[in-house]
């Protein structure tokens, strides 16, 4: 039963990842759809990081005590000023762990 569960889950997940990569799938994406899809990366990535930063212990947390929020604001400033992904990631993580360590 466990084996069956694992195999069926794998099948569902692989299909969802592969479906539109198949060239024989008769789907011609119109220019409107392509424009719409060009917003997918900023939309999805923001929708993943925002809850991590703004929600602590299942509650909205907009305060200076929220280390996630402080470090995220610094990350945004670094990203705007440096345009360097690695530098932004490393420095804002360093700040985050410093804040946690000295809290």
């Amino acid at each position, binding site marked *: 039963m466990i084996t069956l569960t694992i195999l069926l*889950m794998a099948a569902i997940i692989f299909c969802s990842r592969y479906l*539109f990569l198949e060239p024989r799938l008769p789907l011609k994406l119109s220019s409107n759809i392509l424009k719409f899809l060009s917003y997918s990366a*900023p939309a999805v990535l923001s929708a993943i990081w925002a809850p*991590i930063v703004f929600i602590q212990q299942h509650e909205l947390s907009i305060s200076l005590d929220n280390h996630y929020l402080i470090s995220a604001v610094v990350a945004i400033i670094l990203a705007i000023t440096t345009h360097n992904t690695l530098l932004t*990631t490393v420095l804002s993580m360093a700040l985050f762990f410093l804040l946690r360590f000295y809290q």
Partner: protein
Amino acid sequence: MSSQKSSAKPYSSNWKAWLAGALAVMPLSIAVIPWGILAGSLALDAGLSPFESQAMSAIVFAGAAQLVAVGMIKAGIGLTSILITTLLITSRHLLYSMAMRAQISPLPLKWRLSLGFLLTDELFAIIAKNKDQANQPLNPWYALGGGLSFYLTWNIASAAGILIGHNIPNLESWGLDFAIAATFIAIVTPQINRPSILICVLVSLVCSVVCELFQVPSGLLIASLLGMACGSLYAKATGEGE
């Protein structure tokens, strides 16, 4: 292996592209380690054998879906419910594969299958980042480097979780999830170069937080689609970029 001459331009060799992908995904790999350990340990806890627990990470390879599924297995919930939940959690991958269709569907079958299998949130993120910086067609070796190194990290972390078993420390309290936020902020912020993208980001940001607060199922997908719709409608209404 075909050398894919046309698409390897920014890197002097396939190996360098592979390494660049692995490096780009590294902060996300570090962030996923505690979740991998948790996935391995919880699978054992739910009554899976060590082999089954590892097989789940190796062939399902989907963090959120795995964690939810082992929770449901442990609670004795039936197969149909597990599969429907899996479908809901994984539905965002349909969006990724549609967004990647133009770049990946012309590649040979072995590339499509391997990149398709490896197409996680994390791989989608670093491909989006690379596209933005280099403005080049997708280098499949870069994507493979990111995808495969992430896959290995996930599986090694799961194996560690299976070995440690029930004695795992409270990894969630370490705050490693901030690495995900930091990386995604670093990728998204420089891409906001038009008002429509700013609107898209703000809408999905607010909507994802609201969905999370109210525990809306598939909140991530709803927030993303709403953000995409607002951004592209704004661009259309204002004639932006034309």
